[in-house]
């Protein structure tokens, strides 16, 4: 498990690859990578793209990454299209990040998988004002 500094200004990459593809890409510019998750920064819109699985083995590291990922205002976009699994500790990290964004800011989630949408709905986290779920196809590149 290793946190890496993000490199900015890269060209958009193609979407829809496998986790292995994304892991391969992540060698170039991952924000975070471990044996079950790759997180990459996206530029258009500003945000992060997740591929793999989040559970108690990496949710703490994800929470720490998220706390410092969006310091400069604006609306952070999270692309979950390739997030295969996320447990409650992972959602807790997202909620905490969204809470800490500050007044008027929201965390916008794209491509929310059905498994995660169900969990967020039944735990009451889908209705938080600072966490917005976009029902579009994922947009991040």
């Amino acid at each position, binding site marked *: 498990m290793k946190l890496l500094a993000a490199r900015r200004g890269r060209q958009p990459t193609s979407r829809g690859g496998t986790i292995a593809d994304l892991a391969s890409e992540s060698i170039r510019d991952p924000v975070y990578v471990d044996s079950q998750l790759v997180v990459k920064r996206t530029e258009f819109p500003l945000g992060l793209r997740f591929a793999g699985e989040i559970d108690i083995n990496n949710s703490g590291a994800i929470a720490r990454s998220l706390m410092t990922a969006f310091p400069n205002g604006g609306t952070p976009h999270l692309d979950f299209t390739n997030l295969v699994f996320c*447990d409650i500790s992972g959602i807790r990290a997202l909620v905490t990040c969204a809470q800490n964004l500050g007044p008027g800011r929201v965390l916008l989630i794209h491509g929310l998988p059905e498994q995660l949408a169900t969990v967020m709905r039944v735990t009451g986290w889908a209705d938080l004002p600072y966490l917005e779920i976009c029902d579009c196809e994922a947009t991040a590149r």
Partner: protein
Amino acid sequence: MSLVSPTPKFRHEALLYAGWPEFVSGTVPFIRGGVEADEAILVVVSPEKIDLLRTALDRDADRVTFANMNEVGSNPARIIPLWREFVDANAGRVPGLRGIGEPIWKGRSEDELSECQRHESLLNVAFDSGPAWQLLCPYDVAQLPTGVVVEARHSHEHLLSRSGTNQSVEFRGVEGCGAPDTRALPEPRSVAFETSIDRPSLRAIRAQLAHHASAAGLSPATSARLVTAVNEIATNSVVHGGGCGKLRMWADSSKLVCEVRDQGSIKNALADRTKPGTDPAHARGLWLANQLCDLVQIRSFDHMTVVRVHMRLGTGPRLSLVTPDDGRDGGTRN
């Protein structure tokens, strides 16, 4: 010395009836009493009995909110949250509240019946210290086994029958109702998958669960719900249950069951049926399991907790759960 009236509190009463005419004659006066007192009334029974009551109540039925117990109570641990919502929405806004709930009927499986009886006990715990309201729980004594009626006398402080209203001398009390559930669970005839739980193994366990759930005939969506729930319970073992645990999985003709055992202990009797707030720190695992799965059974001792989650199986063709490479580790129960 002055006499002080007892503070109004939650009144939990079993209606012991035999046949539908007695169901009507036992419930309709109770409902009409609420209508006349301008109370909020929620009736949670089967669709057939909702129709029966609508007919019997005529225009008064418009003053009653009905809910289908077959849906609400398909997992009985979801019933207390419904009553909680009803009480929170109405207490203090209307002169009173009353409800009718019939979670137990002929045809419930043994596992469902067992958890319905736990639900009936936990109602006393859930509402003992809150606003005053009345809940009437019908039991069809002509249809149900004697043991079920005996248990109703243990879990209800009041009994209503042909002979009128009586205090149940067999009521086990609120404290007794909230005691940890240590009833024995039936052993499966065979286990399809068994493995140890620890922190690094969670991802592999999810993959194995998904594989076996699919082999048992669960749809991808249902399988995802099961995997999510079991992952949370296994995570509880890692975080709260001594750092490790044991997982077993099996199926019979009607259901798939996953069991997690660990060395933890659950002290809060309502842990699995208290809706979490939005605060990220609130526990959610057991609540989530009840919302995602058809039945959750919790047995907790001083140094051991067993949680079983059930998913009903459809009627379509199924493959065998047992595969040559199903990852058995030959471990024993802790």
